């Protein structure tokens, strides 16, 4: 369980987050949505101790993120930041292999190799595993980074807009893979999404943020109503239901 209590954040004069309270139970996919600048990425990086906590408390599985040794946290929580740039010339397999670093500090056991292979397979990278990262397309690179986070073998996976650079096909593939590992491996996934319909199709729960506050929280069918969406995004849009799934028509 991720427990966020009374968390605020400011950069200089700007208040990024206001008194956030949020509990994310173990298992399932939670999507963070909201307009640009809502504070989604900041919240994610606070959970992942990438930024120091200024006010409030955050704990993952009852480990407070600000005092737990970084290495211990790395075994229960993995994060993939938005637009992570890999400038090193590493092969895909090497990069994914570094996901095992928190466990053996660099020494890879046969178990580690098995997990690496499994991650490569899970994200359809087996054929690319000996290619250098820099030779991959944007989408392939993104999948390699997700695979690395997955190889970390943590219960919690935080992903910041992982669908960037992915075409329709791979966006769908990635979301389906995440759904599968949430269902089969019991992982807890917190994902920042821009495509509200992806959230509707794959998430168990949607948390909507605006100007540093949580403004709505619920299952896709509860949350995706014209009224709530207007409150979050600031304009009127239609919502239709197909196959029990709400679809937001926000294009016109």
């Amino acid at each position, binding site marked *: 369980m991720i427990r966020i209590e009374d968390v605020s954040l400011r950069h200089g004069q700007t208040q990024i987050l206001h008194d956030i309270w949020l509990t994310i139970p173990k298992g399932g996919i939670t999507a963070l949505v909201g307009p640009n600048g809502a504070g989604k990425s900041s919240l994610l*990086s606070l959970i*992942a*101790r*990438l930024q120091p906590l200024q006010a409030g408390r955050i704990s993952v599985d009852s480990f407070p993120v600000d005092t737990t*040794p*970084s*290495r*211990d*946290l*790395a*075994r229960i929580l*993995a*994060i*993939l*930041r938005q637009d*992570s*740039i*890999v*400038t*090193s*010339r*590493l*092969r895909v*397999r*090497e990069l994914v292999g*570094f*996901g095992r*670093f*928190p466990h053996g*500090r*660099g020494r890879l056991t046969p178990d580690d190799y098995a997990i690496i292979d499994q991650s490569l397979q899970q994200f359809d990278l087996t054929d690319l*595993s*000996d290619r*250098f990262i*820099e030779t991959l397309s944007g989408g392939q690179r993104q999948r390699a980074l997700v695979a690395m*986070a997955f190889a*970390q073998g943590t219960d919690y996976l935080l992903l910041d807009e992982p669908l960037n650079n992915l075409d329709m096909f791979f966006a769908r593939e990635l979301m389906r893979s995440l759904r599968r590992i949430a269902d089969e491996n019991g992982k807890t996934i917190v994902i920042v999404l821009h495509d509200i319909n992806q959230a509707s199709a794959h998430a168990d729960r949607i948390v909507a943020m605006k100007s540093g506050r949580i403004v709505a929280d619920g299952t896709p069918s509860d949350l995706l109503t014209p009224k709530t969406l207007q409150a979050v995004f600031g304009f009127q849009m239609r919502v239709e239901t197909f196959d029990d799934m709400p679809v937001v028509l926000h294009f016109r």
Partner: protein
Amino acid sequence: MSIAATKQASKTGWVAGLTLAVLFVFSLCVGVDDMPIIRLFSDGRALELLLVSRLPRTLAAILTGAGLAIAGLIMQTLARNRYVEPSTAGTAQSAELGILLVTLLLPSASLLFKSLAASAAALLGTSLFLMTAHRLPPTQPFLVPLFGLVYGGVIGAAVTFVAWQADLLQYLSVWTNGDFSGVLRGRYELLWLGALMVVVAWMVADRLTIMALGRDASIGLGLDHARMLQLGLIIVSVISALSVVVVGMIPFVGLVVPNIVSRLMGDNMRGTLPTVAVSGAILVLGCDILGRLIRYPYEIPVGTVMGCVGGLIFLWLLFRRPSHV
């Protein structure tokens, strides 16, 4: 790493090792005083020459080369930029400033103490460089080396100014232009400390590779990013300072060697670090031998030779780099 890649890597390693061995023997034989290896055991003077001058000189070149190449590699990891190295980012110039100040204030200080002061100054100068470099926009990767070059230039100007005022300009060229011709037994041994730093770097190779993925990724993997940064800084500063103090600065080694090795073998430092060290040794020893031969029996300092050879290699690296990277 796949089998093919491993084979390729170990082949590169073998070639590098063998080349170094050949150069090592060659370097023992080349010098003003003609000394065929055969006479070594019949002629006591020849043996003396070997032990007092040739061997220390050769070892100094190898140690310096390996150290500078590794320092460059780590510097590039810390700055997350392929185009920086100690001599072009203010590290060497800061070390010069440190040793210059010690020479002025405590003329009788020992070489070890001077090295320490130089290391401390280098640490300070490099930290300042990295702090500022991290503020530059990552979308323009050439700004960082540019900043480093001018930053080094400004510190260098300060060094020149102080040296000029104190009438120490001749001393200065000893530190600013690498030259092995003065290396004798008893005057290069500090460089082994640099070798120690190389070993330390090799021990934390995996962490360095992760550092290169960026701050967020390394924290995400549970690495103590700040401490690794400090360790890296210390390694870079000590190696650069020792080179400056003992033989003088040699440009470009830390730049071209890691870049070429990265092209050939990638950036997984567990695998590439030894090759980087050996290749650095080859380059410096090779340039030193070249400097001894070009205008035999006069010698050309290795720093000058390297400025030409390394500069050409670097330009070649810059312009043949494929545009998509």
